[in-house]
């Protein structure tokens, strides 16, 4: 029998707020344990939560980007459960009246796109982090009360691949919107995966199994594949599935049961009396709407039209918003669009990849980059010099036009000078000259290389090649 797969995702995204959801503590990820804490996020007696308006704004921006219905009235609730890393032994969350309803994410499928519908987005606080040792446990409350946005999809994905495509698209939009870094390793984006299967031809969804708290896309993919196979195996052997929560073990590459529905907790949700409902005026939502960036898809189309770029270029440039911004900035400053695109796709992205940095974090500015490309375009410097300068700009930053003057890097296009170099090279390498005459094309490259060497890289290589050919022919 064939089975149909149904997957729904609950994705927790840490918002890029400077301070936590309900107190003024910093949200720095790398700080020493329990240094970004205060009576509020430690759940001290008498401490009260105070809402972070920025977190509400970022959630609304996310909702607008994802096409959600922003709710004019929403509220916070207490979710009650005892665990040592929950400072108050309840979590402040939004149980039934979240900030955003509906919406969706388009994912690419063969021959078009498929819209994965979102059920809702709500805002909540994170808990602390427990670490367990042989004789004791440690709790770090630095993460306690940081702002988390939970995006709950409808159960509409039908494969592990679709789930990953959804997460990739979602991540790109959220990073684009600037609401979260969505850094997977730092746990900025964690998902619970709900999976059920049912025999083909039936309508009713099968028993749901939830796999908790995964941050790596490859783990999510592997866990979903494993779980689908496990469920099929159980059903094919005539067994029944139980509604349960499971955990992915990346070392054993399997899921293991954490708890079944029978021991599900009663969270006793009730409205948080320490906070007033969130009331958003339509004017406020409209004002925030003006802050929305262009969607990646729209930007791609615009790049093709506005800069006459091939589809492929536009797609690569728009994959990361900071890179797209860098490109546009450089073009605005006078860099030729296609050249800028080529340089970014090959050299800049390579350098970023090697150094594992983001473009906004490196010394190379769009201004210097544009200046460099203009020097190349006007043939003021040749390509090898330009590439060398780019490496240097990437490391230290600086003004390439000034360097060219100071260091005398200007390309030598003076016929007399190149002629002199060519003559010397031809005289010094009679064997290679003979080879070239005999039809060996690479021999010419060698001779041009020698001219470049003599000119300390500054000669116009095209002119050098033509000059050498001419001189050999003339002999």
């Amino acid at each position, binding site marked *: 029998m064939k089975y149909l797969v149904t997957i729904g995702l609950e994705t927790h995204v840490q918002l890029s707020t400077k301070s936590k959801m309900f107190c003024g503590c910093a949200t720095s990820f790398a700080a020493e344990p329990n240094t970004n804490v205060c*009576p509020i996020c*430690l*759940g*001290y*007696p*008498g*401490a*009260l*939560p*105070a*809402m972070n308006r920025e977190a509400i704004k970022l959630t609304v921006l996310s909702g607008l980007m994802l096409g959600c219905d922003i709710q004019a009235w929403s509220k916070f609730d*207490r979710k*009650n459960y*005892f*665990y*040592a890393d929950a*400072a*108050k*032994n*309840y979590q402040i969350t939004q149980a039934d009246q979240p900030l955003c309803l509906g919406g969706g994410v388009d994912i690419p499928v063969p021959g078009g796109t498929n819209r994965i519908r979102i059920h809702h987005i709500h805002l909540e606080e994170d808990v602390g982090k427990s670490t367990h040792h042989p*004789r*004791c*446990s440690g*709790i770090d409350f630095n993460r306690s009360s940081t702002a988390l946005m939970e995006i709950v999809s409808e159960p509409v994905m039908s494969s592990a691949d679709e789930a990953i495509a959804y997460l990739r698209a979602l991540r790109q939009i959220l990073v684009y919107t600037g609401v979260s870094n969505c850094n997977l390793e730092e746990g900025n984006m964690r998902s619970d995966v709900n999976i059920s299967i049912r025999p083909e031809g039936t309508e009713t969804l099968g028993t749901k199994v939830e796999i908790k708290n995964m941050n790596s896309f490859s783990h999510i993919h592997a866990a979903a594949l494993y779980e689908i196979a496990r469920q099929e195996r159980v059903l094919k052997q005539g067994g029944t599935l139980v509604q349960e929560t499971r955990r992915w073990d990346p070392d054993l590459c399997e899921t293991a049961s954490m708890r079944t529905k029978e021991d599900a907790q*009663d969270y*006793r*949700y*009730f409205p948080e*009396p*320490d*906070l*007033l409902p969130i009331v958003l005026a339509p004017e406020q939502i409209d004002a925030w709407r003006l802050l929305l960036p262009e969607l990646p898809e729209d930007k791609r189309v615009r790049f093709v039209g506005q800069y006459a770029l091939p589809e492929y270029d536009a797609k690569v440039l728009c994959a990361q918003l900071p890179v797209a911004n860098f490109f546009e900035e450089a073009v605005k400053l006078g860099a030729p669009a296609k050249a800028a695109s080529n340089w970014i796709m090959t050299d800049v992205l390579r350098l970023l990849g090697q150094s594992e940095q983001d473009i906004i974090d490196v010394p190379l500015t769009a201004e210097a980059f544009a200046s460099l490309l203009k020097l190349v375009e006007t043939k003021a410097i040749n390509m090898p010099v330009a590439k060398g300068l780019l490496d240097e700009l990437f490391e230290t930053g600086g003004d390439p036009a000034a360097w060219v003057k100071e260091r005398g890097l200007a390309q030598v296009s003076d016929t007399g000078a190149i002629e002199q170099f060519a003559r010397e090279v031809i005289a010094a390498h009679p064997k290679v000259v003979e080879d070239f005459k005999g039809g060996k094309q690479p021999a010419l490259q060698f001779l041009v290389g020698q001219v470049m060497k003599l000119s300390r890289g500054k000669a116009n290589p095209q002119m050098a090649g033509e000059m050498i050919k001419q001189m050999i022919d003339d002999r």
Partner: protein
Amino acid sequence: MSLNSEFSTMTLAQASEGLRNGTFSSVELVRAMHAAIDEKDSVIGAYLAFDAEGALAAAEAADTRRAAGEYPLLLGIPIALKDMFNIKGQPCTCASKILEGYIAPYDATVITRLKAAGAIPAGRLNMDEFAMGTTTEHSAFQVTRNPVDPTRVPGGSSGGSAAAVAGGLALASLGTDTGGSIRQPASFCGCVGVKPSYGRVSRFGVVGSVSSMDQVGPITKTVEDAAILLQAIAGLDAYDQTTVNQPVPDYVAALRDASLKGLRIGVPKECFLDQTDPEVVTKVRAAIDACADAGAEVREISLPHTAYASAVYSVCAAGEASASLARFDGVRYGRRRGAAEDGLQALYNRTRAEGFGAEVKRRIILGTFVLSSGNYDRYYHRAQQARTLIRRDFEAAFAHCDVLMSPTTPTPAYLLNSKNDDALQASFDDAFTVAANLAGICGLSIPCGRTKAHLPVGLQVLAPAFGEVALLRAAEACRRELGV
């Protein structure tokens, strides 16, 4: 007369004047307070702790400031506090064993404001554990006796706050009122006690358990003192987002021309029940008649849902408390019982079983029950709906009344150990006061005479939310009329 003998009846206003005129220093004032506590508190038991050294150091600093020409309103005046306010560097027990060893790392907003006004937070007062109770007998530490009659309770939960003021052991104090916890002990001890409107005073740093109803308020000897203290602590606070952005009027100035002429007083008929003590009824009726004689328009009104107030209160308050008190688990602070190797659950169980008293446990269990899946709609949700009806009752009443007057409590102070096991009776005692907390309006209790056994009777005055000016003016005018 010496300062020590004057201290027992001294008001805030008098202390302020004495300090301003140089009649005595702040150090002398604090010494007089210390002497009064030493002399009388062994019988009354109002104080859990009095840090004489700290208070004297603060008094010295205040005297220096005064000499330098600084005169904040409450400069150098010691204010005693119910032991549920965080005061940086001091314990805060809520009269519970579970907070044993806890030292507050921060100041509650009301403490910050008292300090800003120059006051000296001095002395931590007994209370019912976590403000749950009406007798102060639910303190984990000691019994507090009513200074008027030491065989009787001072009321609760702010029993220590009322007993200290009534017994002459404090100039004035702060308490908290969730369902009557300021007004009822003020009534039992013969003090003035004000529950401000919900959102008037910050709850930040106050270890309350019922966020939607708790309010901090003064317990004093006079209405004027209550106005002075409320003035100092009221106002918007970014740390408590349930505080309301409403200007704080000059409450003290508003008292000057307080008058009953034309004041529309509503008298809720539901507050004169068959169970109400006849002597209480007589005294309260007499006070209302005196107001009428002085020109007030008195009319009987109805608050039809009053009968449900106590039950609604029990459900709402217990539900919130069951969550609010969950943080007391022995993990981060306070008293921990149980070893790590027994596991987290065992640690929770022992810490909470041994740390909380019976009344607190009763409410946590009740609250957990009413919030649990399947019961939420039947209890908690319905109670919230009923709460709306109770609020509407008041809105209707205040459409044609400026204030409402009733007994604060159905009986005067009762004997010690007479109410411990009767939770339902305790609920009945709250009936007149809890409705104000459910509705978020303001109220107060002032003395309006004594019974034959010489026990104080309290007159409750209620006014609309943020109607503290009307509330205090009515109370002050009535007090003048009664000559109390």
